[in-house]
């Protein structure tokens, strides 16, 4: 699957395209197929995202999983500060990312 990601213009936080909006949670991301670049142009022009780009991933039973470790860390937060990540109460989150 293909995922569209970027950073929120104001906060800089990592965001994912859901099909109609942007979310912080990769579990809500959709497969953009071959439409990612076109959506990116429109959304960046609307100032709803900063520097969007398309990445590869796979659909798992826990939702979309980026192919590359860098994107998996982006989706979670720093593996060494789980308390600051999107899964602050899940101590095994970092291991799953790696």
């Amino acid at each position, binding site marked *: 699957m293909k995922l569209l990601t970027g*950073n929120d*213009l104001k*906060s800089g936080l990592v965001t994912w395209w859901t099909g109609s909006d942007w979310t912080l949670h990769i579990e809500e991301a959709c497969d953009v197929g071959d439409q990612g670049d076109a959506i990116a142009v429109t959304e960046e022009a609307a*100032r709803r995202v900063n*520097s969007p780009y398309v990445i590869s991933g796979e659909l798992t039973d826990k939702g979309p999983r980026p192919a*590359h*470790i860098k994107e998996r860390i982006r989706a979670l937060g720093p*593996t060494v500060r789980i308390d600051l990540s999107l899964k602050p109460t899940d101590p095994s989150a970092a291991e799953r990312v790696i």
Partner: protein
Amino acid sequence: MYKYDEYDQAMVDARVAEFADQVKRRLAGEMTEDQFKPLRLMNGLYLQLHAYMLRVAIPYGTLNSQQMHKLADIGRKYDRGYGHFTTRQNIQFNWIKLEDAPAILTELSTVEMHAIQTSGNCIRNISSDQFAGAAADELTDPRPWAELLRQWSSFHPEFSYLPRKFKIAVIAAAEDRAAMRLHDIGIQIIERNGVHGAAIYVGGGMGRTPMIAPLIKDFVPLEDLLSYLEACLRVYNRYGRRDNIYKARIKILIHEIGADSYRDQVDAEFVHVKSLGIDPPRAEFDRIAAQFAMPPLDASAPNDVDRSDPDFAVWLDQNVAEHKVPGHAIITISLKPLHGIPGDATSDQIDVMAQLGREYSQDELRVTHAQNIVLPHVRKADLYAIWQRLDEAGLATPNLDLISDIIACPGLDYCSLANARSIPVAQKIAERFSDLERQRDLGELKLKISGCINACGHHHAGHIGILGVDRKGKENYQLSLGGSGAEDVSLATITGPGFDEDGVIDAIERVTDKYLAERTDGERFVDTYRRIGMAPFKEAIYG
């Protein structure tokens, strides 16, 4: 410490106002990211893996308690309650909102701080010896010269768009605590026939092509220093490559044309530059230098320290250095606790250090390139009370220059350029060697980790260096041995094939075991390595 004059403050205030307007225009859609990016970078604002990151300049690593408190406030108010001290003696905040950046810079300006030239292809924060003004072995305090260079390089119109970033360090002691020869320009204040001058080393650096700076001029009279440096930069600006980012640093230029050719061109340029009269009058330098005068320390203060508390005694031996004034000492506060993140401190810890600086260290603190904090002017009689306060705050780790005092870049946990994580490796090494007696038995061992080839973690200069790479989508770690950023400067050599995260920890243990088996009396790890060479270590690692 240097105090801003009306020009310094006006320059910073004007820049804050300018950047506030640029942020407003960006948020209003009047600028694209491509247009805005170079502007935010000029103000130290990066877009990193998880958020915007703001890098705040701490000139030559010196700050007062008010400034330190302000950094704590910013961490608390605009970030997530902490900051990360860097290998360029700066601090970074990892979770900044773009819309907050103008307010942060405004707050910084009220304590004479900013984020100008902490990014971009310009002259970056001037770094120096963290013991400057206090070290028993220094010829003079190098910071007045560093401050002069700060003023010279700030908004320098000719050097705002260099081929690549440019880093300068200034020291004035025989012991190099600033990795001086691994800078684009390293300056060592020296004495010849009773006169002070500067030895100028140009073309050092780490990154993908590490090089030790060759000596370009053995003695530049200090009254010519700015003109000579201007000539050095001009030759680089003229001939440095702009067509290939990987070959754009001055070290590549000097490597390609040779040190002699570069020196000849600088000498020729210097004749012209000197005629322009850019060197400040002596009175101006004296005005700056007066602000770095030694604080009023009582040389009759007692030298004896009660060592009856064993934990205190260990910390005293490991983290406290002699001061040039009897009865006083220099404390290095380790930001490398077990399970911690190298260089990180919470806002509460930053406040504690600021308060200790105000109460006990003549209102001065320093940031070291090894990501620790220094209290430079402390009475020996106060050491125990300070240690108790540090201990309460989790800041009394007695591991300075030991294997767990690791330099580590933010790595793939935070940095958009990184290929592998650095911090978890540092934490695992610290855990493997958590027995303090074992660490102290190993002695001075400088271990440095970078998460990519840009080498922000100084792995080339590590007695043991680790470079994280991406190997087919997995983190892999190359081990290297024998580097040093000190006066015995050397570049580390790669041992061989890399390892996964656990594998590199095991490999390091085999290296240290080999060192213990081979060392002779008084030999540090790097001494043994230099004596016996790579082969025995390689055999120990790979079998």
